């Protein structure tokens, strides 16, 4: 596509990146076909091709107002368009630049700013978030129905294995998962313990940076990334084989640390090493041969998170592991579409998020599964809010 970036952006690192991505787009419109928001809203401005156009105009120095910000905000960053795009347009990287520039040029209303700040201060802080969830659980009986369904059930994780193996892998605890569903990581640790691998948590590691990144707080995101790299580095040097992710939303972000820190003299190399070592738990198990069969095979509906199938391009792996273990997967229509969770999206864009969740649950439950399995805490809680059957991380099925 023809581009004429304005002098303001032409020679910056972000500007050059944006231009190289824009030039790959040939405006064919294939992306709109698999874009959840375009399918719902039918406006070119709410599909990837239109958003690319909006960003191009902005970077070319045209006047932008709140409409550009609105349509960029409505993007789920599910990256379904990247899977569909034959030309190889790296849309999400362009969007990151576009959102950053839009935030600089367009003033958000105070109310929006306040909400975004609250999210940035609560979600990535796992202690603060834990306290919030605990008090929510305590007062749950007194809460209105709409709020009640957002509070997860209290749960107790299985004990962390104590045996020490020579094979070691790091695991990211993340920010919201320890409060909502601590079982997921203890399940992963126990499964790997049986396979002769010790799973280590680095105490000082925390949020992967995705929350800040999605809310266009780049500096904050980069600080979180560096903190995690520092927390993991001693174990990496001591020979940890991998950094395991049990939330694909975090996984996709950590796998891109190398991209985010590419211009950082001190961290670029370390970030590359961390990104290379980062694996989704499915990728780890795929390489291990001795996986036990399920004692009670179940009929499951599999919901592949966008961050797994479009972000990390991992498809067919979890399906193969579950089938191999003896479970049955029911067919699910429109499996490529987002469930509407998308990080903070479910809080900031409630209408679209709700519509996507309703559609997703309809398709997931159409063939009467016993439970829904997924691979990301965000999707899990979002779907569980209105699902009549349990929604869990698939790894928990391997601890039977």
């Amino acid at each position: 596509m023809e581009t004429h970036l304005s002098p303001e952006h032409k020679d910056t690192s972000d500007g050059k990146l944006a231009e190289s991505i824009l030039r790959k787009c040939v405006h064919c419109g294939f992306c709109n076909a698999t874009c959840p928001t375009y399918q719902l809203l039918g406006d070119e401005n709410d599909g990837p091709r239109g958003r690319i156009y909006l960003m191009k105009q902005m970077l070319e120095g045209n006047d932008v107002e709140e409409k550009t910000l609105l349509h960029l905000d409505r993007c789920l960053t599910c990256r379904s368009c990247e899977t569909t795009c034959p030309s190889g347009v790296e849309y999400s990287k362009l969007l990151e630049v576009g959102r950053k520039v839009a935030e600089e040029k367009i003033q958000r209303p105070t109310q929006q700013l306040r909400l975004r700040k609250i999210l940035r201060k609560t979600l990535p802080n796992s202690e603060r978030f834990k306290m919030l969830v605990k008090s929510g659980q305590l007062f749950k009986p007194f809460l209105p129905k709409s709020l009640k369904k957002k509070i997860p059930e209290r749960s107790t994780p299985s004990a962390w294995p104590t045996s020490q193996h020579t094979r070691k892998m790091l695991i990211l605890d993340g920010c919201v998962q320890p409060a909502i569903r601590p079982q997921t990581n203890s399940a992963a640790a126990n499964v790997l313990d049986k396979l002769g691998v010790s799973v280590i948590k680095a105490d000082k590691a925390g949020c992967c940076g995705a929350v800040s990144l999605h809310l266009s707080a780049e500096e904050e995101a980069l600080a979180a990334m560096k903190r995690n790299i520092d927390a993991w580095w001693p174990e990496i040097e001591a020979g940890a084989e991998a950094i395991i992710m049990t939330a694909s939303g975090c996984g996709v972000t950590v796998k891109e640390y190398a991209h985010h820190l590419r211009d950082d003299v001190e961290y670029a190399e370390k970030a590359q090493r961390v990104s290379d070592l980062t694996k989704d738990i499915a990728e780890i198990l795929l390489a291990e041969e001795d996986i036990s069969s399920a004692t009670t095979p179940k009929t499951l509906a599999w919901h592949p998170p966008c961050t797994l199938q479009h972000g990390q391009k991992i498809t067919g792996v979890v399906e193969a592991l579950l089938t191999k273990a003896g479970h049955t997967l029911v067919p699910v229509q429109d499996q490529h579409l987002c469930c509407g969770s998308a990080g903070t999206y479910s809080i900031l864009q409630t209408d679209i998020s709700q519509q996507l969740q309703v559609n997703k649950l309809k398709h997931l439950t159409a063939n009467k599964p016993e439970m829904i399995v997924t691979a990301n805490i965000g999707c899990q809680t979002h779907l569980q809010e209105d699902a009549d059957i349990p929604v869990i991380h698939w790894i928990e099925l391997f601890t039977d």
Partner: protein
Amino acid sequence: MPSSDQTITTIIATLGEFLSSDQLLTSEEELRPYECDGLSAYKRVPLAVTLPNTIEEVQKIMRICSARNIPVVARGAGTGLSGGALPDENGIILGLSRFNQILEIDEENQLARVQPGVRNLAISQAAAPYELFYAPDPSSQIACSIGGNVAENSGGVHSLKYGLTVHNVHAITIITSDGDLVTMGSAALDRAGYDLLGLMTGSEGMLGIIVEIVVRLLPKPKETVVLLAAFNSNSEAASAVAAIIGAGIIPAGLEMMDKLSIQAAEDFAHAGYPTDAEAILLCELDGSSIQVVEEKDRVTELFKSHNATSVQTATTAEEQARLWAGRKSAFPAVGRISPDYYCMDGTIPRMELPAVLDKISDLSTIYDLRVANVFHAGDGNLHPLILYDANNPGEFDRAEEFGSEILKTCVDAGGTITGEHGVGSEKIDQMCYQFSDDELEFFHAIKDAFDPKGYLNPGKAVPTLHRCAELGQMHVHNGELPHPDIPRF
């Protein structure tokens, strides 16, 4: 005629009485993404974009615009490649993307009743549980809308055997230029009276607005195989095409790709194409088991006797889907090897394929622009993609001139200037080359009968005689006419 600011304000206010803010776009930033369709080299910003939800809203919009003679340009998924949905600066876009419901799959009568904004592929997906499919499958079938397919009379890989859109549509409901609702055609195959449905199909949004379509579904064939043959030259592959058709075989699809397109498509789809081949042919054969086996053997023999360097057979649905995925994504995949491309669409008699491909290759040297060929070889429908860089001043003009030469070559070889993409804005000048004044006058008489005010997609598809006369007399330099400000439509 340019509208005055007051007229624009009045029109927008009137539309705003029944359209919500997300159905009526008027800000510059939101209008820009509508300034072009799939042919992004042609751009014009409309006055407004309307996104109606109901037929009644479409009727109201039409009546308002008709009364004030405001041009209305219909738009489906915006994937057209001839600028058919290019806006008019003084008009509005009528976007039909929200008409995206499949209203009925009639298994017994093998019909689907759908809204115009439904994606082509979605029809076949909805029909799949009944072992049925919708045959015309443009490469953009994942995204293009059925309304756009009818407006452009689109074809696709399977048109060789199963026909174009016009052969697969039973009925359409349109809104006339007066805002009335009229249905043309019926569930039956033959109809009394003039074939208005045939006339509407391919009329490029100039005679009415389509709001509902009944398409024919076909039973999925019992057996299908796909053959992939590699060749050392385009002309050997082209000769093999002529030989297959000459032998009385009608494949379900017979497609050719040259080296550049093979490499670009393979990079995206990982289809397993031989990237060292100069050309490949993809040949799909379907029907009963006996027929498919027999034809497969004959086609394989023909490939070999035309110097195919290898022939692969894909028998499973997965293998076949992978081979077609490369072909169907080939146009945009070319974005990997060139920042821009100009997709041509001309049709020639099959026997002329080797000579015309040679001529295109010569032109490529003269204009100093690369060409990737990927096309429906079986029905002689060429799609040369001229690769250029829009950021280099003058390169698109050169590409346009080159394209024009290709189309003239097609006409001279006994073919036409379009196979399935329509004329739109892009090929309007070449219409002067293809048709005589008498024929063009006849087209204008049809337009006048349906749209006497001429406000539906004005200036597309059929050039005025005046424009043709000027083109005949004037030297066209860099694709620009002298005094471009003088209205010529």
